[in-house]
């Protein structure tokens, strides 16, 4: 294929990837009237109106929502990585009674539609006194991440040579030490993949927080965004300023983590 055809293809696809972001940024800098112009343009007509960001930030306590989102996402990631690398280590390294049953029970959870268990989950968490708490938001999210995390970590641990384990035993390492000193550092690509997936997933999750939280103090960023949507009808400039505030932390953190993500994903899917 000619080089220039390749480039046109790749650039065209690149443009479709980028355009929504261009529109989001452009619209957030428009005046409310300009944002409703027909047909839309991605670029503001007059001077850039930066004040919308301040208005949106102050109108709702976005600072607060931002902190909540960060706390929730980081704790979910930490929980998922610790709990499920441990399980995967056991699945990958040991034979024990009930192994298959336990493994497949957890994998099967992947297929239960999230909405189905919402109501009982809400009742359960409320009975435990965890509604309107961080823990109430976080624990079900960690549990929900189990199937894929267990699957990917187990596959990844299985690709590591067993001699590693044996030489660590000869060096006098206990089982737990082997797990966190030898296997955990080696599984970094898989950990990176799962961490990124779950950071993004919990950052964007609205369904569960919407149900378990009604105190505005515990709103996460996307919930703030939805609240903004319901309170300002078709003010696209405000909505897009809020949207940008919501995605910016993810955009800034992750482009340079892509390598890790891809490494871990392909190690999990290309089974030897």
């Amino acid at each position, binding site marked *: 294929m000619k080089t220039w055809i390749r480039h046109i293809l*790749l650039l065209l696809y690149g443009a479709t990837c980028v355009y929504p972001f261009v529109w989001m940024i452009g619209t957030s800098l428009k005046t409310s009237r300009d944002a409703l112009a027909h047909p839309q343009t991605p670029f503001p007509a007059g001077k850039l109106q930066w004040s919308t960001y301040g208005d949106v930030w102050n109108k709702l306590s976005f600072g607060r929502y931002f902190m909540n989102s960060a706390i929730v996402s980081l704790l979910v990631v930490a929980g998922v990585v610790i709990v499920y690398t441990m399980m995967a280590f056991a699945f990958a390294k040991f034979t024990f009674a009930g192994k298959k049953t336990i493994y497949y029970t957890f994998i099967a959870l992947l297929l239960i539609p999230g909405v189905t268990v919402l*109501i009982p989950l809400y009742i359960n968490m409320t009975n435990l006194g965890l509604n309107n708490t961080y823990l109430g938001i976080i624990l079900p999210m960690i549990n929900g991440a189990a199937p894929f995390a267990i699957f990917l970590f187990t596959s990844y641990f299985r690709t590591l040579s067993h001699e590693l384990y044996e030489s660590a035993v000869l060096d006098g390492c206990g089982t737990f030490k082997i797990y966190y000193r030898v296997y955990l550092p080696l599984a970094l690509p898989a950990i990176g993949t799962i961490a990124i997936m779950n950071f993004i997933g919990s950052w964007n999750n609205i369904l569960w927080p919407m149900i378990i939280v009604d105190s505005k103090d515990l709103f996460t960023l996307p919930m703030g965004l939805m609240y903004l949507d319901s309170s300002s009808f078709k003010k696209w400039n405000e909505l897009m300023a809020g949207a940008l505030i919501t995605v910016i932390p993810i955009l800034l953190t992750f482009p340079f983590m892509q390598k890790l993500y891809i490494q871990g994903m392909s190690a999990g899917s290309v089974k030897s």
Partner: protein
Amino acid sequence: MIAARKKWVPYLFLLPGILLFLFVGVYSVGFSVVLSFYNWAGIDFSTARFEGLDNFRDFLLGDDPVMTRNFYYALLHNFEMAVFGTLFTIPIALALAFVLQHSKLVGFYRTVYFLPMVASGVAIFYVWKGLFEPSGALNSLFAWLGLDFLVAPNGMLGSSSTSLVGIILSGIWGGLPGTLLLYYAGLSSVDPTLYEAAGVDGASRLTMIRKITWPLVKPITLIAVIQIVNGAFQSFENVYIMTGGGPSGSSEVVGTLVYRTAFLNNDYGLASAIGWTSFLVTGLIAIFSFRSLRTDL
């Protein structure tokens, strides 16, 4: 793989995950199965009435014609999302991965392509809502290309014949990059000397693709299809924000139907029954997924 010297050691490693599952998962799963046989409007469970299979009859067999219609349409929409998502994502991603493979600007393109993947979520659903407006970018693009028959006067999401198309398009936009990057990683992991050696041995281009490329691409395709299909059947937030399932149910999916039935109509039993039925449907897909997620244990 070894048998631990102390038999309880492996279980110790499993303990936190299992405890969490017992604490959070088991009760919820169990109770929602029970609920599907009850009529319950929420709050106090002593007001619940056991109804056997009535809930299931309501939406499966037409005892409640409106509900039955809504359910089958919602399920159909989930299927359409899965099928069209797969049909478009897989070939385009694979083709682009091939094209990307020998490009000099791989690093740049990869970063750009990564954007939709990381940002796809609530914020981006609002962006799509804006782009699908009557005055939005898609209508402008079609008009500019002279494809006037594709211009949706009410916006793509605003008319019942095209709302699902809009949802599917935005889904493909968010899902394509992940698949593309996986394929790219897979393709570039092949040692190029392998193709050369095959060429020297007189292998045809087709044989090379069949014997070298395909075995590599196959497991990636499986993972990608599972993710797309599972995503399609779990979808809620995209539909909820972009269309709310409308107009007139044209983009309703099982997720939004269950949500509406439970939290707006307060019919928790019926909502649970619908959820579990859709679980049985996805179970068919599950059997397929299991075979590819099988790990040597």
